[in-house]
């Protein structure tokens, strides 16, 4: 197995684990972490894609690397915003749950 395939499989695995966590775990903080896992998987795939440039005798294609850095900044901002909302929610309601206590699913009132 070439290194590229190995990295690609790792990326796919990260995306899969992240999606699993995001779907089944009810806790918002875990969901945020799962989102970051998916993000890491996608960035890893993008890094593998950058290896295409190596065929031209370069160390790698620089464009994906620049985009991954931007992507990490965006994912970081998203995480910060989500955690801030979660903290505010905890302050306001005493729980950090996406569902209300009275009904198992959120009521719209």
């Amino acid at each position, binding site marked *: 197995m070439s290194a590229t395939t190995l990295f690609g499989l790792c990326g796919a695995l990260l*995306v899969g684990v992240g*999606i699993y966590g*995001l*779907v*089944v775990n*009810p806790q*918002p903080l875990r*969901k*945020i972490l799962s*989102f970051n896992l*998916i*993000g890491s998987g*996608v960035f890893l*795939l*993008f890094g*593998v*894609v950058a290896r*295409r440039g190596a065929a031209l005798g370069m160390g790698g*294609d620089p*464009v*994906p690397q620049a*985009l991954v850095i*931007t*992507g990490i900044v*965006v994912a970081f*901002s*998203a995480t910060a*915003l*989500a955690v801030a*909302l*979660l903290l*505010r*929610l905890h302050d*306001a*309601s005493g729980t950090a749950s*996406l569902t*209300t206590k009275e009904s198992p*699913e*959120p009521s*719209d*009132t």
Partner: protein
Amino acid sequence: MSALATLIPETTTAGGFLLVLALVLPLAGVFAALILGGCNARRVAMLTIPLGLALAVAIGVELVQTGQTVIYLLGGWAPPLGIALRADGLSAAMLLTTTVVLLGVALFARDDFETPENLREARAPFMFWTLLMAVWGALNAVFLAGDLFTLYVALELLTFAGVPLVSLEGHSETLRAALRYLLFALLGSVLYMLGAVLLYGAYGTLDIAILAERVRPGMLCFAAVALMTVGLLAKTALFPLHLWLPPAHAGAPAAASAVLSALVVKGSWFLVVRLWFDVMPGVVTFSAAQLLGGLGSAAIVVGSVVALRQERLKLLVAYSTMAQIGYLFLMFPLAFDVSGNGPVHGFALAGGLLQVISHATAKAGMFMAAGLIYAALGHDRIADLAGVARTMPITVLAFALAGLALMGVVPSGAYLAKKLLLDAADGSGQWWWTIVLQGGAVFTAGYVVLVLASVLRRRSEPLLLVSRVSRLSELVALALSAGSLLLALAALGPVPGEFVSSSFAPKEMGVLLVVFLGGSLLASGLSRRSLLGAAGANAGVMRRIAAGVGESFELADGVIRRWQFASISLLMLAILFGGALVWGAPPS
């Protein structure tokens, strides 16, 4: 549109600098508001938004005069090395709509979000005006960006600006709605990004115009389109991925709801249009478009029926948004030909664009009217709205006109859009969409009639108002609704006149009558209370069956809006879209 592909190699056009200004102006406003702080945020917004309107008009004029896509190459570097900003007719129309609606929202919210005189800075007003400009900047970036990664960043900015608007009031319910919105939108955007990464891996560029020339149907391309499409659908809240929309749009303050409902969901919709018709016209298939249209039809039916079951006005309007989002996806199948491979456009794209513009203006007016009623009464329980028409005639008129515009009464934008789409349905031999297009109006009429019947009811004791609403806000809501209702007249230039008939032609009056009767039937059958407020004790068998149907729709909606259900639907849809692309692809 397809002209984009022929423009390589490109250079900056004469009016290109306008596009840069359109991006810089709102963001400069955001920074100015952050630096000047406090009560100045409103002043900055009030100054920049009219300037932005002038700019949007200038871009439109430039586009019409030169007849070419307006292009600006950042730093003079041509794609694929550099990044291009492009404005075609679609972008220009969206830019103009956005600024008009934002101007309306700014005027509407002038008094609501005023910094109290004894304070130097209050959180809600300061954040509202700053976020309003941030939403605007992000939308402009979505409309102008020329490559898939810049579009990703723009979409994320749009979400980051939209989510805090939901929780401006800071109650735990709205915070929860905002968090659900953010988390689901993030799942959508990460799938979009995964698709973009796959495309870069295969074709070595993310520029829309270059990709459009290089893409070839194949497994990788199908996977990328499927992932990107469902990611964007999650952000647009198309059925069955609408779990976040009703609580978020109903919980936000009225001015913020108007922005979220009229503009923010259109950002990701616009990107689906770009992806399907500009980047992937040779890859998307008839069957995938049918799937998209099918989801749209389901959204119309479920959204409208659940809207009828709501007890609060703002939730009713939020569910109406969910139904109207369904309409926006009917243009996708109609842009295809049954026999042909790949989209043929016709009038379907123009119809879809017109529908977006008319929905943006009408829904902004409708949310404003609902917000005014809430502000005046201190509640928005539909059952207790009797007498409102007498006390707040302008607001009720705004709501009624918005409702008529959404129904597609002559000469509203939605009417002309429907005509164009019906023409496309005829031309492409897809009779089944005719049923959806005609039937959809009946569903819309249902919840409009329900609300109007409630506000027009007589009240024995005088209505107690909690607060006086500003006359300016009422007039803004009315102006936006009326604008949507008269949109077809404005669109007559580009669209052939034979599509618009007189409002009083017997045929149109007949259709209107049928729509209203059908709507009233639906409203009296499916809603919680009987329409005329009479006692429900002597309810007949029919009424009980209808109530049961309404209830089951409500239950189903509750299940669909569970997190697990929605996120698994998201993944299933990705697989379905992939399948529709693979099996629908022309044999090579």
